[in-house]
């Protein structure tokens, strides 16, 4: 089996390790690029959201490299993402691409452990459990890596750029649980801040694919870091999997905190977006940046709730929606203005001096 799956940012390493543990030969999709999105958009419905287009592009590029089995997250709740695999499988068929297409339901861990994975790989469930544990450890490592990287970028951008490939190499090579544990300390050391503190800290919230796959948001964390703002986030694949396993206290907290602005989940992860924003506001962060794909219904509802939060508490909120046409220049102007605004606000500096 030559297995592949759509990229999920740095967690692509964690998923690769997982499939290898179960005995697959993994052919990762090439890193997301302009070609991926052009290819994906060409074969997608026009108004569907970017996660669909990019993941379809990933599949097409992975098939070019010889993949024969495609894994894709599935499981419909209120967000249409859960149905994407049907359309994507059909799109590949229509293009005459041959592959075994395996939808992996997100919302039934028991099904995943006892039926889907043993069925595909012919392994006993305990091996799936063991592989999941390792994947979780690795995914937690990439979450920590991103946190260190974001802080380092805000105080010493060039230093962070130099440290990044070293840290990624360590993460990629960590195979056993013990190695992963050792890598955590090493990654932390690599991103030593030398006692410097970031000028401002911004909380990043939004749709999960955009939170994980930096390409989709035009590397917003990097751009904000370059402007001297540390990007703090809660959402990650690690936390998402913990949530699917009903063992994420952060999710319970988000749901509780969101209630003031959003009584009921409108689907997707909107409730979490709002809850995390409230949490960041309570923690005293200097601003909130909200990212989501254009046409995303749940996040548009979250947007309204975030505006209310901003009105009530005074915390600045910048909401940004993206599609494959999003202009980079326009995006950078908005980010720069937002960071300037947050800095000036924090310094409390009066703008006129005489």
């Amino acid at each position: 089996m030559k297995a592949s799956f759509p990229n999920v940012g740095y967690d692509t390493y964690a998923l690769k390790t997982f499939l290898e543990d179960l005995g697959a030969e993994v052919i990762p999709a090439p890193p997301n690029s302009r070609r991926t999105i052009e290819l994906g958009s060409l074969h997608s419905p026009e108004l569907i959201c970017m996660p669909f287009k990019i993941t379809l592009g990933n599949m097409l590029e992975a098939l070019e490299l010889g993949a024969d089995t495609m894994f894709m997250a599935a499981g419909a709740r209120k967000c249409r993402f859960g149905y994407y695999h049907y359309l994507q499988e059909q799109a590949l068929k229509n293009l005459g691409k041959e592959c075994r297409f395996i939808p992996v339901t997100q919302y039934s861990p028991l099904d995943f452990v006892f039926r889907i994975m043993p069925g595909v790989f012919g392994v006993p469930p305990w091996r799936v459990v063991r592989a999941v544990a390792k994947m979780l450890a690795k995914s937690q490592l990439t979450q920590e890596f991103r946190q260190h990287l974001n802080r380092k970028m805000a105080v010493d951008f060039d230093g962070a750029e130099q440290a990044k490939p070293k840290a990624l190499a360590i993460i990629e090579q960590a195979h056993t649980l013990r190695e992963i544990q050792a890598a955590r300390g090493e990654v932390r050391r690599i991103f030593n801040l030398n006692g410097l503190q970031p000028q401002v800290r911004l909380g990043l919230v939004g749709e999960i694919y955009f939170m994980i796959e930096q390409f989709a948001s035009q590397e917003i964390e990097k751009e904000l870091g370059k402007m001297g703002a540390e990007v703090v986030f809660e959402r990650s694949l690690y936390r998402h999997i913990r949530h699917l396993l009903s063992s994420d206290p952060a999710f319970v907290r988000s749901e509780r905190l969101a209630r003031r602005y959003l009584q009921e989940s409108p689907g997707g992860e909107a409730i979490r977006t709002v809850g995390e924003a409230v949490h960041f506001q309570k923690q005293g962060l200097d601003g909130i940046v909200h990212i989501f794909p254009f046409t995303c219904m749940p996040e548009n509802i979250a947007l309204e709730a975030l505006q209310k939060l901003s009105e009530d508490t005074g915390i600045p909120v910048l909401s940004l929606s993206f599609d494959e046409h999003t202009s980079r220049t326009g995006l950078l102007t908005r980010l720069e203005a937002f960071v300037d605004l947050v800095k000036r606000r924090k310094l409390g500096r009066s703008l006129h001096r005489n």
Partner: protein
Amino acid sequence: MVEAYIGIDVGSISTKGVVVDRKFNVLASRYLRTQGNPIDSIRRLLAELGAQVDTGIRILGAGTTGSARRLAGVMVQADIVKNEIITHAVAASHFHPEVRTVIEIGGQDSKIIILRDAIPVDFAMNTVCAAGTGSFLDHQATRLGRPIEEFGGLALRAKNRVNIAGRCTVFAESDMIHKAQLGISTEDIVAGLCDAIVRNYMNTVAKGKEIHPLVLFQGGVAANVGVKKAFELMLGHEVLVPEHFLVMGAVGAAIVASEETDGKGTRFAGFNVADTAFETRAFECEGCPNRCEVIETLRELKVIDRYGDRCGKWSKL
């Protein structure tokens, strides 16, 4: 010897420049058409500003803003290159410290800035719509054979403001033509157009923002008395167009430059940029599948600036 700061705002339609003294009084100001050629308009601007201030002036700092801020910054060796939102806010609160809302509509961009105690606390900029308001007004004035300077005045003479579909300029134009074919007067149609522009601005740019007085209206479209009137009708209170409304971005850039250069000295290249050859070209990097478009600026055939690449391979000169 007068000590002064220079601010330059290069937008899609117009290129603005000011020279201000240490108290930010405007000593000289110029407004030119960009005419799709910012390099040329920046050159002309510098030459004309230089002629206005003549001798006896010492520039302590230079700042650029607007959509061509980076290019302008490279050309004149500015001390700061600042986005237009901050520069407009800075200038507004300098002249009117009690300002709480800035409405800025230019050739291409529309924005709203919310200030509290002279500190900008929130802003929004047009995303999918309300873009190109200035250019559209320009186009409509030409189509109706009226000079742009008088166009807004037509709206003030309206007897029955007519409803114009304002979703986007394509709809607005065809609706204006339909209404004209029905025999409705140009005055009423132009007033309707001003209302549509304001409605669209309120629904797309200012959406969800609480607009408190004092409201300042800046940018090229503020010259249009019809749009100002339509804002006042919509908001129910007075809207103030500041004295230097056309060059507020440039004034803001000069003020920010003064904050930044405070005693540090300036890099400003002087007013004789007009005699220097500049060229900008673009190429597609083939280093990875992202195929970034890299923009290069050359002075006297030597590369002085590059940007546009995601990875930093080219922009690190």
